[in-house]
């Protein structure tokens, strides 16, 4: 029986690959947009802009204080009430983007704050304007602190993308959920699902560890 189910599972493997592609697509899109939102928000937050800073605070706290599943439900079930009907894929990308953006905002603003203020002051004294200071002095140094947790956040993003399977995105987890209805061997089916996630996440985790080792932050005598 076990062997029979295994053969069945091998037959459905193409669907798992399709699901994996969906997982990669959803998390890849949200990764790009979440990084853009996160960096913008993080720079604004670190620059202590009066009103915007408070708003960002509310946004980040909401995203960090509530479960991602609840955020997905809010976007998928409540936005239509306000006249914004999204299909599952767009809702998933929107939810993941906003979610990742909040965490990346924290990482980026933390990284910028960690650069000693003397750096920025020296750049100001040299006559660089705000953009030049950010672009050529602060951000390059902050990247050392930002990069390792950023990659770690990408791993979380791929893993959290499994949650959007509940609103009907056919990612690996949902394919597994469908398959287990026909092949009632949960260990085998979700073992495969886990393996596919592992293939994506493990290299990223290793990369994060490598970066952490290589980019030991050392601001020297400042």
């Amino acid at each position, binding site marked *: 029986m076990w062997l029979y189910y295994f053969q069945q599972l091998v037959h459905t493997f193409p669907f798992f690959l399709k699901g994996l592609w969906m997982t990669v697509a959803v998390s890849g899109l949200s990764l790009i947009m979440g990084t853009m939102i996160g960096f913008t928000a993080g720079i604004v937050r670190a620059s202590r802009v009066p009103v915007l800073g408070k708003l960002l605070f509310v946004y980040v706290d909401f995203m*960090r204080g509530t479960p991602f*599943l609840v955020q997905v439900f809010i976007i998928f079930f409540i936005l239509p009430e306000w006249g914004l009907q999204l299909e599952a894929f767009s809702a998933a990308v929107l939810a993941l983007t906003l979610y990742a953006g909040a965490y990346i905002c924290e990482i980026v603003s933390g990284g910028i704050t960690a650069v000693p203020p003397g750096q920025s002051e020296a750049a100001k004294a040299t006559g660089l304007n705000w953009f030049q200071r950010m672009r050529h002095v602060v951000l390059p140094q902050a990247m050392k602190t930002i990069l390792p947790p950023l990659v770690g956040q990408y791993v979380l993003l791929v893993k959290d993308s499994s949650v959007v399977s509940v609103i009907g995105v056919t990612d690996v987890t949902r394919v597994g*959920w469908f398959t287990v209805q026909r092949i009632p061997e*949960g260990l085998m089916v979700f073992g495969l699902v886990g393996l596919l996630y592992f293939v994506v996440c493990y290299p990223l*985790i290793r990369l994060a560890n490598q970066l952490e080792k290589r980019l030991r932050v050392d601001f020297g005598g400042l």
Partner: protein
Amino acid sequence: MLEAFNFRVLLDYLPLFLKGMWATAWLSGLSLAGALVVGTLACGGRLSRFRLLSALAGAYIEAIRSTPLLAQLYFLYFGLPSLGVRLPEYQTGILALSLNSGAYMAEIIRAGVLSVSWGQIEAAMAYGLNYFQRMRYVVLPQALGVTIPPLLGQAIVLVKDSALLSLISVFELTRAGQIITSERFMPAEGFFTTALLYLLIYYALKAFSSWWQKRLIFVQPA
């Protein structure tokens, strides 16, 4: 937005939400206790001199960290019955959360233990303290100081992760939101209230964490 918010219905469902919050609290509490046990064991295994034990614990930690909780939850939920183990849903949920969080706990505890430098232990030995005294007065207080803040952070993650238990029909806070959505077609009332209650838990845990950090200021090991 608020004029469309039906507070009377919320009042009707308030007992349900409170029950859900209580369920979330005890489910997370039990899982946290389980995760601490699993984490300590896995950490002990990881630091063990026996190669096999260390490799096994390492494989467990890496496997958990590179797959999503939802896949692990389904793995147990659909997989345990095919092993002949039939648990009530909430027990499967607690098991999954403990195993998942335990892997992260193991890494946190390991960092804490390794942060106490060997010199500290040698010095305590030189004073003539025995093993228990060394642990009680030298190693543990220093390790705890480093360990408690990330442990509380992990506890916050655990509470939020427990929302996924609603997907295997365990009654908790998110499930309460789903119930009001399906019985009254009021997703806004359901999920915003759910989110608000999660935020309450989040802030309570965060306040406790910062209170603790203020109380325990330890000398950072060199």
